[in-house]
């Protein structure tokens, strides 16, 4: 983006971070021979930063990794360290944690649906254009998002980098009455959330099919968010004899044996694979693996939106339609948040003590954009000797690259004019945005280079 010799000062990025992501395509004789996605990957820095710090610090420090999903990092860090120290947080404290996490889901998914993803389906370059043309859906999205924000502010202490979370629970827990206005606000956005599902279901969806394994946490009876077992689902291509044959689970302690990361020279991120195959985490994976446990209202909205019957374990394999699944997840999160508030009784203590011991522990939870894994090793004095973070975006990298290859190839195969670089850039951005990677919230998120041979 350098403009050598330019005289005009261009403050083009009043933007926080520039050029965080890039796609490089190699096209040879009309065939896409290589797709490379470079992504922004702060966890490596944080892994090093954490070593030598106290065992109570990761929830606060890892919350800084992502402004959009700090709670996911906090919850995963807490659970991993509590696992190492042999402490279980349950009952109302666990429910409050879940409520906080639903707040983040509501906020993050609404942000992606309304401000990032929806403009793609209307040929708009930004949410600003969308807001000028369709004000009501954007207003609706902001209302829903605001309700999620309110949950995070009340329980987290504030919306960014929540400060009220600590090992073992919270610094302070709310009285029952404090949750009443929150419930009121959530009830008001129930209809907004359902209307959003109807709105996005009416978009035009290009044909596309995922070709990868899906990975999400699974817990019988619950649409897993902060609990369960890592579960992989081979995408049914018709060869698997049954659903159960296509699914396999492994204990979270064996996560790094199955999800293996490798360096790729073009990215600071480590790209990972699942038992040697590319895989996808996030809304589409959760829906396929846990859809039967969605709240009935969310399940009904999914059926009405044409996603098939989640109770029958139907998967959605078109990445463009992930916007519908996200909208369904918002309905689920609003309903579950209300359920938790309804049944809330303040726990006797705001947290349980988590004394350190020399041990290792790991945990995985469902961040809005996919499965997030943490592992820590602690010495007897409570100092961290190792931190390991596997974020969803790095796991999704291989699947996104394959999506890019397929979409660009199918455009190249279409008869008529060959696409310009600008057209390919739009297509690639859409393909990447379908998976809500961490980079999508930074400006200039994609620099595209095409190497035509």
């Amino acid at each position, binding site marked *: 983006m350098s403009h050598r010799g*330019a005289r005009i000062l261009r*403050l083009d990025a*009043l933007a926080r971070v520039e050029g965080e992501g890039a796609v490089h395509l190699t096209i040879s004789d009309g065939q896409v021979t290589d797709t490379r996605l470079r992504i922004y990957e702060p966890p490596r820095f944080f892994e090093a930063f954490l070593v030598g710090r106290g065992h109570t610090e990761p929830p606060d420090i890892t919350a800084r990794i992502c402004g959009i999903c700090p709670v996911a990092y906090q919850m995963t860090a807490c659970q991993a360290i509590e696992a190492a120290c042999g402490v279980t947080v349950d009952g109302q404290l666990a429910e409050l944690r879940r409520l906080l996490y639903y707040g983040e889901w509501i906020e993050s998914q609404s942000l992606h649906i309304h401000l990032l993803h929806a403009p793609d389906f209307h040929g708009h370059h930004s*949410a*600003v254009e969308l*807001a000028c043309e369709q004000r009501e859906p954007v207003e609706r999205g902001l209302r829903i998002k605001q309700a999620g*924000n309110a949950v995070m502010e009340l329980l987290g202490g504030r919306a*960014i980098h929540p400060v009220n979370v600590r090992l073992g629970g919270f610094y302070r827990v709310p009285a029952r009455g404090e949750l009443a206005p929150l419930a009121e606000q959530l009830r008001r956005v129930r209809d907004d959330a359902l209307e959003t599902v109807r709105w996005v279901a009416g978009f035009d969806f290009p044909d596309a099919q995922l070709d990868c394994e899906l990975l999400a946490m699974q817990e019988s009876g619950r649409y897993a968010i902060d609990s369960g077992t890592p579960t992989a689902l081979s995408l049914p291509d018709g060869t698997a004899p049954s659903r159960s044959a296509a699914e396999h689970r492994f204990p979270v302690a064996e996560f790094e044996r199955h999800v293996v990361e490798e360096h790729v020279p073009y990215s600071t991120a480590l790209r990972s694979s699942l038992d040697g195959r590319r895989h996808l985490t996030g809304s589409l994976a959760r829906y396929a693996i846990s859809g039967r446990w969605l709240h009935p209202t969310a399940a009904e909205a999914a059926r009405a939106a044409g996603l098939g019957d989640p109770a029958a374990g139907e998967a959605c394999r078109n990445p463009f339609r992930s916007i519908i699944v996200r909208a369904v997840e918002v309905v689920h999160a609003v309903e579950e948040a209300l359920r938790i508030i309804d049944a809330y009784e303040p726990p006797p203590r705001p947290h349980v003590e988590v004394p350190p011991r020399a041990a290792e522990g790991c945990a995985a939870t469902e961040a809005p954009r996919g499965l997030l894994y943490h592992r820590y090793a602690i010495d007897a004095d409570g100092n961290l000797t190792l931190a390991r973070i596997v974020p969803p975006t790095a796991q999704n990298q291989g699947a996104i690259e394959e999506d890019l290859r397929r979409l660009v190839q199918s455009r190249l195969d279409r008869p008529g004019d060959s696409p310009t670089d600008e057209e390919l850039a739009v297509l690639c951005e859409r393909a990447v945005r379908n998976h809500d990677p961490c980079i999508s919230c930074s400006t200039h998120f994609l620099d595209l280079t095409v190497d035509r041979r």
Partner: protein
Amino acid sequence: MTGRVVVIGVGNPFRRDDGAGPAVVEALGGQVPEDTLLTVSDGEPGRMLGLWSGQDSVIVVETVHAHPGSPGRLHTLDAEQTARCATGPASSHGLGLGETVALAAALDRMPGELVVHAVEGEDFGLGPGLSPPVRAALPELVHRVTTAVQEAQRRLCSRTG
């Protein structure tokens, strides 16, 4: 309207110079009238709109990139200039301050008045701490923001008084 001046320091202290906004807000404690609302944000537009809609006077402190750049140089922008910094159609759906202002204008959620005080950054790598040119520019930036708060306060008082 609240009759209050709101200062929003935008940025991530773990991305070097991106932390200038929050650093200014921290330095403002005790320097500005007590009823000034000092806050920090990651700049996400929905949250920014939540912080500033319905407010009379908002001062945003940001780190910017410029081409050609001169790290440490200070800029003051009004709302219109800021909205013009929304990234052009060639870019992705950026969510910088320019887009946030444009979005707020489209949704009638602009504050009564808005000014942006910005410093050009040099290092946006991972980690805490500002680069030397930005660190050197910080006292002047704090001074400008303090003055802007006082002036805004006077305007609000004379309006209500």
